[in-house]
């Protein structure tokens, strides 16, 4: 079947609960060896400062399999997903000095690179376009302050907590919204629920995230 079936959390809403639990279990098991958000930032910094190949190898080991997974879930075939994942990692190497931990966490930064590469792939445009459109201000400027970095870390943590607190049906819709350029109507078809339900779940999920935002500003 399609790449969608590789990722638990689609197709049949009834399968979601045990599947979601499985992900949590897997994550718990891997936690010991997974680099922390601070370590990931340090690794990108090492690549930027000294072209540290060992640091890059660790970034590759963490991100490449997840980026590929994300791209497959977004509808790319295995080979294409791997090719784009490689491009993403090359961009991580080349753009490491542009990474600003005072603006985004490491995974968020890599996500935006993967997202832009996916846009280019699907729309067959050059990466300059997507990059310029989505990050018109990504120039290295002042080094980030410790305060900025702390604010970003807090934001990343807050967003993760807010996502965890979402009911599974809302979380599913948010995930699906990030996986592909799918209009809500298509998501509704895929999940076998009415379009109105998809829209109201999106609204509920966004309200939840908004509560977080409002408490944050």
């Amino acid at each position, binding site marked *: 079947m399609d790449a969608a079936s590789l990722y638990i959390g689609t197709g049949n809403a009834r399968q979601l609960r045990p599947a979601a639990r499985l992900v949590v279990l897997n994550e718990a098991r891997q936690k010991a060896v997974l680099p922390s958000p601070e370590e990931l930032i340090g690794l990108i910094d090492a690549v930027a400062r000294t072209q540290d190949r060992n640091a890059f190898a660790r970034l590759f080991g963490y991100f490449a399999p997840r980026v590929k997974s994300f791209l497959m879930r977004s509808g790319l075939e295995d080979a294409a997903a791997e090719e784009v994942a490689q491009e993403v990692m090359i961009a991580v190497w080349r753009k490491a000095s542009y990474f600003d931990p005072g603006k985004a966490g490491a995974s968020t930064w890599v*996500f935006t690179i993967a997202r832009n590469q996916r846009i280019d792939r699907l729309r067959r445009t050059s990466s300059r376009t997507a990059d310029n459109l989505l990050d018109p201000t990504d120039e290295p400027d002042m080094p980030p302050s410790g305060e900025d970095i702390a604010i970003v870390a807090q934001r990343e943590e807050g967003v993760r907590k807010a996502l965890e607190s979402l009911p599974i049906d809302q979380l599913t819709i*948010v995930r699906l919204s990030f996986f592909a350029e799918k209009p809500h109507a298509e998501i509704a078809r895929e999940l076998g629920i009415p379009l109105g339900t998809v829209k109201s779940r999106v609204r509920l999920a966004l309200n939840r995230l908004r509560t977080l935002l409002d408490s944050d500003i």
Partner: protein
Amino acid sequence: MTINHHPSDETLMRMAAGALGSGPALVVSVHLEGCAVCRNRMAHFEAVGGAILDEMPPVPLAADLFGRTMERLQVVQQLQTKERSVNKHPELGIELPRAMQDCEVGPWKWLGPGFKWSKVKIPGSPDEKVMLLKGRAGLHLPAHGHTGLEFMQILSGSLADERGRYFPGDLDEAGDDVDHRPVVGQESDCVCLAALEGDTRLHGLLGRLLRPIVGF
């Protein structure tokens, strides 16, 4: 400058997810350039993407992928610095936002009495319906509704309708629930960047005005 009109949560989430067409995304990018509040909102939505990436179940890679990637790094040229070209279209009489620097912008063309437009081409996305619009001070636009989403970022001057007044920096997102009768402010001409989403044959005012002229 206080900005009172912002893109919706839905729109920013779609933008963060990479699911917004490049036309509307351009309009939102111009808004983000001038709106710290929305840059912060956008950062939250992008962080949602980061969290989703973190929780993706890792899939196996070809055994030699890392080696091949390292080989490519040897030959990859230095990242060219983005050349920041100055406004290529001085005849428009306005300074274009940075987010538009790669766009091709045509000259002003007549669209109606006191009403001009200029086609905006986004590299790689020739079919997007994006344009600059210029209305004379005090111009009354006909009342109209919308069938798709219409994104409009005010660049200069002002616009008012039943819902409020729009100043430079404001973004108006008008969907099918919006019927309005916009009026250009008396103080000066109004220039805005607009993008249409969806089937423009069904679009309201802009679709009707532009269709015969540009074949949108």
